[in-house]
């Protein structure tokens, strides 16, 4: 019983850090001790490892949208022309 509760607490602790772990965003990096603890937990916990894999799949799927949502090159060209025009007007 106690072992189960401990495991649940470890999973809960890990679940709150998995996204920061995967993103490694500069403003929200895990501390070295957190990183070590999380990786040790992932090495032992199949359920949390599965959550990590689901997040990786989601990231790949959403990453697939990046390319087809790329801005229209004609819009980019028109906006570059706007920059040229603003600069030219100043000179």
């Amino acid at each position, binding site marked *: 019983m106690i072992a189960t509760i401990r495991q649940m607490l470890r999973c809960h602790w890990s679940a709150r850090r998995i996204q920061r772990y995967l993103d490694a965003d500069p*403003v929200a990096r895990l501390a070295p001790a957190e990183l070590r603890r999380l990786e040790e937990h992932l090495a032992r916990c199949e359920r949390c490892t599965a959550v990590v894999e689901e997040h990786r799949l989601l990231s790949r799927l959403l*990453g697939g949208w990046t390319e087809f949502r790329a801005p229209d090159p004609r819009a980019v060209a028109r906006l570059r022309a706007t920059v040229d025009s603003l600069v030219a007007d100043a*000179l």
Partner: protein
Amino acid sequence: MQDSTDPQQQARAERFRRFVEPEIEVLLRVARTLTGSGVDAEDLVQETLIRAYRATDKFDGRHPRAWLLTILRNTNSNMHRRKRPDLVADWEVVGGHRPAFGARPPTATDDAALHAELDAGLRRAVDALDPRFRAVLLLVDVDQLSYADTAQALGIPVGTVMSRLHRARNRVRTALRVRPATRSDR
């Protein structure tokens, strides 16, 4: 013969170009996520560039992207006062497009049908999100913005970006999780 070009004006123009040109595509991506429309996005970025040019002298040169995203957000807020600035107004941005996996050819190990189904499920799950959560998810995971830049674009604290992102991803992930079971039931 006297040169009519003011050196200060010239320096300002060069600074402006240096700050802005590398960020045009990012601004367009973010503007599209904020407005939900390619046409509105272009108008928004154009107005942002004009305002940024006027404000170039006040900018210290650090973090041009964050500076431009703040101007973009304020401009969007002014242009669409009736809309909440952190909402994606129109979800045709993704919903009306071809499947994401049409963007690249399947590899030898890809299962194109599974990918197409997953992508359709993903669109439904993202569509079902609260627009505030959807905006954060799109800005970080599709437009590839950092947490800090997303916070600038939406005018919310980084902590709020993280909590919305956490909830959005978990909801989408949970929605996708049931799909393999659905397939095997056929």
